[in-house]
Each structure stands twice: as structure tokens, then as C-alpha cells.
């Protein structure tokens, strides 16, 4: 495993182009495009203000830089450095900006979710979509980029509009049986739309592309409901994480629950392996303990760690959530499937140091990674069943069915890995710190 040198970035703005050739980073108001392999700067663009959001177009030809405070979006072309486009939303304000899947339209959501403005780079035309709903995930494009589902709110009722992205033709418009719709998500094959209700009510609705209601699922009533949702890449499973610390898996044929994954505080599943990160303070009492190391401040950063396999049963550290406050820190906040559909990684908010990996073939717990500190982010390798985890320290953790490893990022100074980003080939990993980033190259399979 090799590491590159450290580059500067701001707002954790760092994206790899969809074709995997370029790396775009934002440093204040500058946009830097590098070659992923050589890390040489290819282009340098200067924006009008500090960039808040940055996104590659699907064909890797354009980059969008949004400056929400000023209501501005600037688009740059990689092929024609002097080509330039600026969109000003004016006094109406800008809340979010994104590319349409064809890479020729930009969808801006205005402040107060007043409307969604669709700007065309082809003919400078502008069109509006009114009444978009302000919610967890109100807009989703299908994986093939053909359709867009948009949650709307009219007359205190939830609606969903399905647009054809090609020409923004409204294909379907239907009312949903939700109290207060929280999100929409297309299945990866683009034929089923999962719609979930607000956390006050556990309800998942599954709509066909043509607006027919396929199925409704509700696990329980009255207590807080769905927190997160994830489709398996094969569209075969729908995983629903909820506030009751459970993940429920629905199948794609009957849309009934196949299995329920619990996250108990005491693990005594004999088929699971529990890896516990054990930190070892470096015992350097010699002159190695230089001023530089002392200046690093926290001793956490020069500690070494390794994984130990725990003897079952294992007691997992839990945090008692404050139930009096809104959005209590309990339940499954994030879940994601590995690229081969084989594994599911979950995180339970009241066990913040643990990542749970479930085997979907065996439908059981495969492994639990108990970290020394709070897990910030976990991402699957887009090619292999390999999970990268970071916990806001200078280490990178990798899990694969073969085992678990902890790698210290060999970077001078303080570098806390806050976020992770895989290159689409799965050969390299971008570690994003507070204002720095570093590339990590996976050399061989054995190292993982």
C-alpha cells in the first residue's frame, strides 16, 4: 500500500471524474484538476467565490462549482479551458445545485424550495418545476439517467412526479399514501421507486415506474420509524434501517421481509467474528520523542493500533441516547451494500464505534469492527468486497472477508481522515481530511 503526498483542499471538495481519469479539488475559490495517475495539475480555474459544492458531469467533460451564498453556479469545461458558463439565480437564492444525468442540464433548487430551475447548456433555456418538497431525499435520478423522481407537496398532500430526463417531459404524476414523505430512491435497475414516510411513521411504499403501487411495508407503529434505506446493486434487496436498531431486508418478488438484522449490545453469534481495535501507545522514551512529535499535540495520532479477534460473547460499547431531544442518536443511520451484493455494512448510531458487516448469502452477521473511536465513514470498494473505514484519526481501516487491517497514514503533521472516496477502479482510495487530502494506492489483493 502506497500513499501520495498531501494536497490542500477546502470544504472536503474532492471528486474523481466518472471516467476515473481526473481528480478535481477545490482550494478556496480555485478549482484544480489533476491527473489521477501522475497527480500533475492539468487545469486551474478560478471561481468568483469560495466553492461550496462541486460536481463532475456524467461524461467527465464539465465541472460544476456552486457558490450558494451568492446564488451562483459556474461551469468549466475540461476540453476547452476558455469555455465558461455562469448561472446566476439572482435574488431568489440557491439551496442546492446538481447535474442532470445527461451532463447538459443543471438543476438548481432555490431557497425555500420554491422551485427547481432546469438550465440547459445546449440552448440556454430555462424551465421550472414548482412545489418541490423539502425533505431528506426529495429528488433521485435512476441509475441509467433516464428518469427523475421528484417529491412534491401540494395541498398538504405528497405527490411524486416522474420526468424523462431527456426532454424534461412529465411522464407520471401520482399521489402517495404518505403522511409526510421523507425520501424517494430508484432501484438500481430503474423500475421500482422506493418511497418512505417521515420518521414518525414506519412506512415504505414501492411504486412501479408507471406509477402503480406495488407494495407497502410497515414493520411497526407508533414509535420512530425509518432512518435510512439502501438498495442492493442487483435491485434484489431493499434494506431498511430504523430507529429500533434493526435492519429489515425486503425481497424484490413479494416485497416481504426476508430477514431482520438486530444489533444487540452483546454479540454471541458464533458465526460472527468481532475485530476489536486495540491501541498501543508508542513507547519511545528515547530521543525519538522529539519536539516535532510533541508538537503534534494529541498522543492519539502517534499511537499504533491493531485488531484483535475477541472471544464471544462480546459486549459492544453503547451510548445512551437522549430521547428527550429530536433526532435521537439511536438506530441505523447508514447502510450500504458491497458491489457484489454479498455484504451489507451498517452502523447503529448508539454504538458509534462499531461497523457491522452482514453476509447476504448466509443472511447472518459476518463481522463486527469495534473501533477505538467513533466511526465517521465507511465505503465499499466499487469492485471488490472490501470495506474502508475511517474514524477521524490518522489511520485507515480495511475489512475484507479474509480479515481486517489497520494502516497508519504516513503523513507528516496532523492528518485526520474524515471522509473516504474510492476511485472507480477500486485501485486507489482518497483520504479526505479537514483541509488536506491524500491518495492511497492499493497494490495487491494480499495487502487488503
Amino acid at each position, binding site marked *: 500500500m502506497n500513499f501520495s503526498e498531501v494536497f490542500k483542499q477546502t470544504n472536503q471538495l474532492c471528486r474523481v471524474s466518472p471516467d476515473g481519469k481526473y481528480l478535481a479539488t477545490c482550494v478556496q475559490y480555485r478549482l484544480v484538476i489533476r491527473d489521477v495517475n501522475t497527480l500533475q495539475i492539468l487545469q486551474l480555474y478560478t471561481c468568483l467565490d469560495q466553492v461550496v459544492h462541486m460536481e463532475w458531469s456524467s461524461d467527465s467533460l464539465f465541472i460544476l462549482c456552486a457558490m450558494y451564498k451568492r446564488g451562483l453556479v459556474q461551469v468549466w469545461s475540461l476540453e476547452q479551458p476558455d469555455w465558461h458558463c455562469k448561472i446566476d439565480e439572482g435574488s*431568489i437564492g440557491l439551496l442546492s445545485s446538481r447535474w442532470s444525468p445527461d451532463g447538459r442540464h443543471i438543476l438548481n433548487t432555490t431557497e425555500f424550495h*420554491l422551485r427547481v430551475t432546469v438550465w440547459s*447548456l445546449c440552448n*440556454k433555456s430555462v424551465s421550472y418545476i414548482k412545489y418541490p418538497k423539502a425533505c431528506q431525499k426529495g429528488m433521485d435520478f435512476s441509475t441509467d439517467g433516464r428518469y427523475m423522481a421528484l417529491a412534491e407537496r401540494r395541498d*398538504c398532500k405528497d405527490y411524486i412526479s416522474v420526468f424523462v430526463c431527456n426532454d424534461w*417531459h412529465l411522464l407520471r404524476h401520482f399521489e402517495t399514501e404518505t403522511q409526510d414523505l421523507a425520501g424517494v430512491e430508484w432501484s438500481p435497475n430503474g423500475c421500482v421507486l422506493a418511497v418512505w414516510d417521515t420518521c414518525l411513521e414506519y412506512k415504505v411504499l414501492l411504486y412501479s415506474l408507471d406509477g402503480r403501487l406495488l407494495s407497502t411495508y410497515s414493520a411497526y407503529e407508533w414509535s420512530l420509524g425509518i432512518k435510512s434505506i439502501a438498495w442492493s446493486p442487483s435491485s434484489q434487496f431493499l434494506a431498511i434501517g430504523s430507529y429500533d436498531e434493526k435492519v429489515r431486508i425486503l425481497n424484490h418478488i413479494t416485497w416481504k421481509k426476508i430477514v431482520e438484522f438486530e444489533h444487540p449490545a452483546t454479540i454471541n453469534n458464533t458465526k460472527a467474528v468481532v475485530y476489536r481495535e486495540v491501541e498501543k501507545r508508542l513507547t519511545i522514551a528515547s530521543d525519538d520523542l522529539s519536539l516535532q512529535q510533541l508538537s503534534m499535540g494529541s498522543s492519539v495520532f502517534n499511537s499504533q493500533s491493531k485488531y484483535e479477534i475477541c472471544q464471544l460473547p462480546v459486549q459492544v460499547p453503547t451510548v445512551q441516547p437522549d430521547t428527550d431531544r429530536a433526532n435521537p442518536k439511536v438506530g441505523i443511520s447508514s447502510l450500504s451494500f458491497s458491489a457484489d451484493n454479498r455484504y451489507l455494512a451498517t452502523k447503529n448510531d448508539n454504538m458509534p464505534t462499531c461497523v457491522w458487516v452482514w453476509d447476504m448469502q448466509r443472511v447472518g452477521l459476518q463481522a463486527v469492527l469495534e473501533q477505538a473511536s467513533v466511526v465517521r465513514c465507511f465505503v465499499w470498494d466499487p469492485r471488490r468486497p472490501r470495506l474502508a473505514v475511517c474514524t477521524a484519526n490518522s489511520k485507515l481501516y480495511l475489512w475484507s472477508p479474509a480479515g481486517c487491517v489497520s494502516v497508519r497514514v504516513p503523513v507528516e503533521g496532523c492528518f485526520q481522515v474524515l471522509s473516504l472516496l474510492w476511485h472507480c477502479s477500486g485501485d486507489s482510495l482518497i483520504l479526505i481530511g479537514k483541509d488536506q487530502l491524500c491518495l492511497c494506492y492499493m497494490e495487491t489483493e494480499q495487502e487488503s
Partner: protein
Amino acid sequence: MTMPEPAYETKEICSVTRLLMSPSRQNSVPALPSALLLPKNYSVLSAFCTEQNVNQCTSYINQEMGSLGLCGLSVELCDGGEGLEAVSALNLMYELLQVNRRSQRALEEMENLHLRSTSDLEHLQHGHTRLKDQLEYIRRENSGLHEGERQLQLKIKTLQSCLKSEKEEVQKLQSIISSRATQYNHDAKRKERECTKLKERLNQLLVDKRDKKLVIEVSNTIGRSDGKRGLWKTGKAEARHEGEMYTALLTDYEARQRSLMVENAELKKVLQQMKKDMMSILSPKKPVAKGAVPEDSLEQVDADAEEEEEEEVCESSRESLEQSCEQAREQLTNSIRLQWRRLKNHMERLDSQASLAASQERERDGEELISRRVHEEELQRLRLELQQCRDFVQAQQQLLQQLSSPCDEETAALLNDCYTLEEKERLKEEWRLFEEQKRNFEKERKSFTDAAIRLGHERKAFEDDRATWMKNQFLNMTPFVDRKRPAKSASTSASSLGAEPEAKVISTPAPLTKSHSYTAFNTPKAPISSRTPSTADLYRTLRLLPDNSCTRGSGKRGSRLDSSSVHSSGEHSTAKSRQRPPDSSLRSHAKDFHSPT
């Protein structure tokens, strides 16, 4: 003593009696102590009897005695009137002493009784007091419990009231919540409406204002990613979109159906495999079961019928694998279910049999507790025997391999198949028999060839004879005399000519001799035999008894060729049997061959 004194009694007597009566009176009569203290000095006054009143005294005493029940005794005065009769007085005294002693004893007894009764009484009193105490205690306890109960009742009452109030509270809160929820919902809706109105207004304002800033500056527009030009929104486009959507859905459903079909096919395959396995497991055991359990023969018949049905079903389901029609699927599942049930039954039966056997074993063990030593010895013996047999088998195997080297592969496979000791034994036996047989045949063949040569000569001679005879016949031919004769001779010649290939055809079953097949094969020959019974008989006997053929066949030469062909077939069969020793038909054949020798 308290009885009333006679009237004539003096005061003195009274006083004496009083003295005797109660010691307490002693003190009350202070004049008397002197008389008591000095008993010797009988004072005249105090004496009971004086010389003057002897008579009265005696009468008095007599009277008293009478009253005491001693009627027969009395004190009598002497004739002289002076002095008492000693005998009677003494008797009286003795009686009195007796009475006294008796009364004394009675008194003692009474005292004892009294004592005992007093102690009893005391004891009873004790018991009584104790019981009283207990009663008291229990009463107190009871009252305490009563008190507790009362308190608990009170508590219950308060709790119940509490519960009721709580319930009311809950209900109230629920109603509050629901009312608030409705209120909240209403407000939310109102707010939302207001919000939408505001948004609308804002939109309107923005549109009206024609916000100058709301612009897009593009240095030059770019082409669409697909290279096409944008299309007008028309009905046609709409239809196209619909079509595309439905095709997408259709392809998805098709893919899903395909995957389901694949899965189905796989499952069906598994089912078929399972069924086949089940059948193979169940079928070889059936005849055994049939023989062993005659009582469920009906069931067996049913099962047979079922099996036939199943086979049909199996066939049909195999077809259905391709066409996957509803009915076939049902049939398949049904047959599987059936098989499964049978398997279960079978298993249960086996279970019960096993348990029965086990119990029998146990019983037998209980019955005849043959000493363990005997058992062990027997076992040891059997083991030894087994070892010997194994060695034997191995040796034979080697031998066989050596013998049947040209067809090594086959024999190896066959030997693998028939590894059991029994088979080996039989094989060996057969082998020996065949060897013998072979030798016999060899001998026979020689004799037969000789005979054949002779026959050839004879035949020639016969032909010549016949020719001459025929010529003679022809020459002196009469219309009806001996009409049959030439026909017969012709037929015999024909049969003798045609018999050879025919015999060869039937040669394989022929060695089975008396078996039905043989007669069946021979039936077409029946007319011939009826015409020429001697030849047919000869054939038969020749085939039956190849050893005797030499002696018998010497007469008729025509038969020898046939028997030689039989012989060759026998050789053939030995060659075959070398390859397939366990074949039963061949075995029986060999036995038949063997029996006459």
C-alpha cells in the same frame, strides 16, 4: 362411729368414744389427757366395761357385731356370769382384726387412688391452662391478621381509586393529545397553505420583476451529449416516452421471469433427482417387504399401483420440464409428496422393526443368558473362519484373474461386483464343474467326430441303399401299397438336413433340457417327431444325456451332428460363464449338465 349411741350408754363411754373419735377433741376436753397418757391406770370411770356392766357390754358388742355383719359370732358370758368365753372372744377379736386390716388396706388403696386422681386433675388443669393460653394467642394472631387484611383491603381500595384516576388521566391525556394532534395538523396545513401561497406570490413577484440577475451566461452553447438536437414536445414524443417506459418495464419483467424460470428449472431438477433417489431407495426393498410383511399386502398393492402411476407421472413430468404446464407441475409435486410419504412410512416401519428386533434381542438375552465366554469363543471362531474365507477368496480372485486375462477389464469389474464369499464359492464350484464338463465334452467330441465320420459313411451307404430301394420300388410300384414310405423317407432326409441349422438356433436354450422354453421351441417339430418318433427321441435323449449318447447314439448316426452342435454351445456357455459367474440361468444350466455325470 357417728352412729347414735344407745340410750343406756354412759357419759364416760361417750367421752371415751369421743376421745377415740377425734384427736382435736383432746384439747377441748382438758380433763382427759391424764387418762390417755396413762393408759395402764384404767380408771373406773373411763373404762368401757366394768364388772357391773359386763352384760350390757357383751350385749352391746354383740349388737354391734351384728350390725357389722358378724352375726355368727358373739361374746358370751360364762355360765357363771363371770368372765368371758375365751374362744368366742378371741374369734371375735380375730374377725375384728381382719376387718380392721381390710379396711386399712381399702383405705390405703383409696388414698392411692385419690393421689392419682389429684395428679390427674393437676395435669388436666395444666393442660387446660395451656390450651387457654394457646387459644388466647391464636385469638390475638387472628385479630392481627384481620387487621392486616383490613389494611390491605384499604390499600387495594386506594390503589383502585388511584388506577381509576390514572386511567381517567390517561384518557384525558389521550384526548388532549388527539385534539392537539388534530389542532396541530390543522395548523400545519394552514401554515403550509400559507407557505404555498407565499411561495406562489414570491414566484409571481419574481416573474413580474423580471429579475435581471436571473441569467445564464454561456460563452457558446454546447451540443447534447447524444449528439442529437433537442426535440419539440409533441404528442408523438409523449407516446414515444410511454413506449420507452413500458419497454423498460417489460425488459425488467422479462429478465425477472427468465431468472425465475431458471430457478424453477433448477428446483425442478432437484425435485426430479430427489424423486429418483427416493425411488431407488424404496424400490429394491419392496420385494423383501412384501415377503416379510404379508399383512400389508393390500398396501403393497396400492403402492405398486402408485408406483406405476408415478412412473407415468415421472415420464410426463420429464416432458413437463420443458413445457412446464400447470398440471404436470402438480403431478410432479404430488408424486414427490407420495414418494415422501412412502419413504416416511418405510422409515417408520424400519424403525418399528428395529425396535422390535432390539426388544426381541433383549428378551432373548434375558431368556438364554448364554455365557459370555461361549459367545466370545464363537465370535473368535467365526472371525477366524472369516479370515480364512477372505484369504480363500483372494486366492481365487487371483486365480480367476490369471485365467481370464484376455478380458481383464470386464472381469475386474465383475469381480468388484461379486465380492461376496458365497459367490466365490459358487464360482469355484462351477468352475470345477465346467472344467470337468469341458473334459467330458472334449472326449465326447472326439467320439462324435468319429461317429460323424462313421455316420457319413453310413449315410452314404444308406443313400445308396435307398437309391437302390427306390429304384426297386419305382420299378415294381403299386398304386396304394406303401404309399407313405417314400414320403416318410423323404421327410426324414429333409428333417435330417434341416435339423442341423434349427438345432443350432435353439442350441442355447436347449441345454436347459426340460424347461418350458425347450418344449416351446420344439413344438413346431412335433409333427416331424410324430412322423419319425425314433429320431426325435434320439435327439431328445442325446441332448438330455450327452454321456449316454455314445452308447445310444451309436445306432443312429444322424443325431450325432446335432449333439455335437449342442456340445459346442455348451462350450460357448462355459466361456460365457467365465465372464458372468452369477448368471442364474447359466448356473442352472451347468447344474443340469452336471447332474447326470
